[in-house]
């Protein structure tokens, strides 16, 4: 190696990790939102929440398949979803938060939908063709998630004093978990430098400048949040993660190699 040669980030090892993070975000969020099935306050919202959970499942399938292919260890979407232990999942904790009441559900959906719009808009410009193709498609679907969340922000914040209280309580509870989304560790920094993913500081600014007026426009206050620790990204999860994973994986694990 001659003087002046720089060793750039090793995209080949960073990208599978990043794809796993996004794939796990989508998978765990899908699984969690599906717990509204047959429990939502109205039939129309039951259908809406489950349709969005299905959207996230589709994103998870695409992302996990890409992660397995790039990793080159023979893992596909199913082995990644059903055979990894809890500490190998690298989703942000925001995605695994229990649904709570409808206010908390809408608060989390708002944070996630705006995040996905900013992130996928950035990823549509990725130097990686497959990731760019995925993001160009996914961003269109995320628009409807943001619209749905916005309608409920309006109804709950502008409804009764009880609905407004619960909507604000949902925001206050969920918002600190958003900090993990802006994590700028070596993986993200290396991929950003290579033009594969958008700059995390820029994403944080875009997210803040979108959610703050959105919430305030509905009379809600917006807790301060900034990039913080990223426990989920290193496989550390909440206590409620265990039953979520168990329910998701047990059928597959109970019948190894089974097919429909």
């Amino acid at each position, binding site marked *: 190696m001659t003087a002046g040669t720089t060793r750039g980030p090793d995209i080949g090892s960073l990208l599978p990790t990043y794809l796993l993070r996004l794939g796990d975000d989508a998978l765990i969020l899908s699984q969690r939102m599906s717990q509204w099935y047959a429990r939502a306050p109205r039939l*129309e*919202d039951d*259908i*809406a929440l489950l*349709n*969005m959970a*299905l*959207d*996230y*499942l*589709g*994103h998870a*399938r*695409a992302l996990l398949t890409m992660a397995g292919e790039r990793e080159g260890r023979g893992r596909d979407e199913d082995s990644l979803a059903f055979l990894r232990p809890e500490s190998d999942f690298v989703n942000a904790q925001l995605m695994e938060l229990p649904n709570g009441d409808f206010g908390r559900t809408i608060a989390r959906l708002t944070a996630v939908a*705006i995040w996905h*719009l*900013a992130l*996928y*808009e950035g990823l*549509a410009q990725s130097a990686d*063709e497959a990731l*760019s*193709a*995925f993001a*160009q*498609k*996914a*961003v*269109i*679907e995320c*628009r*409807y998630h*943001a*619209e*749905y969340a*916005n*309608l409920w922000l*309006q109804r709950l914040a502008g409804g009764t004093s009880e609905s407004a209280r619960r909507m604000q309580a949902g925001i206050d509870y969920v918002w600190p978990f958003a900090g993990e989304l802006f994590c700028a560790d070596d993986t993200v920094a290396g991929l950003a430098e290579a033009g594969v993913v958008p700059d995390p500081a820029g994403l944080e600014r*875009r997210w803040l400048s*979108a959610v703050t*007026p*959105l919430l305030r*426009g509905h009379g809600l206050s917006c807790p301060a949040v900034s990039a913080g620790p990223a426990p989920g990204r290193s496989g550390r999860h909440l206590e409620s993660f265990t039953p979520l994973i168990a329910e998701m994986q047990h059928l597959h694990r109970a019948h190894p190699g089974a097919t429909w």
Partner: protein
Amino acid sequence: MVISEQKARQIAGAVPDPELPDITVGELGIIRDVRVHDHIVTVVITPTYIACPAIETIQTDIASVLHDAGVTDVRFERRLAPPWSTDWMSQSARDKLAGHGISPPSPPRHDVIVTLDHVTASLRDNDPETRPCPACGSTKTQEISRFGATACKALWRCLACREPFEHFKSLRPGA
């Protein structure tokens, strides 16, 4: 060659969509390419939604009709970009939807793109387009839910004739 590309495309495109009445997958615009190499026919599909649960059924149906036409080896490729847009639906598909009481997606527009800024601006305005009732034509209609029986449709009702109807949501590409 076991079959010409044109013939294979025609056969594949004629497969009916499992969810939408009378509409073929060709009219939906999801068959992007058909390649024939010796005895192998490869069909490239762009799904309407990434998670569309009908894709597996559609692929099975396409394989079945191609087998009937003498093809033994049918393969599928999923292409996500350019992303499927409701602009790719043929006019005949839109007419059939309307004929079945489903409000078709808005006509093609080239100025609207999905970006964070565009979405947050439209959230502030919160003024959904008026959709005429497919049954009576009245514009006194109201959205009940952004999501309907399938992910691609929203549920509306007509305040004039009191009939509910589904509306096929517009999907358009981002920047």
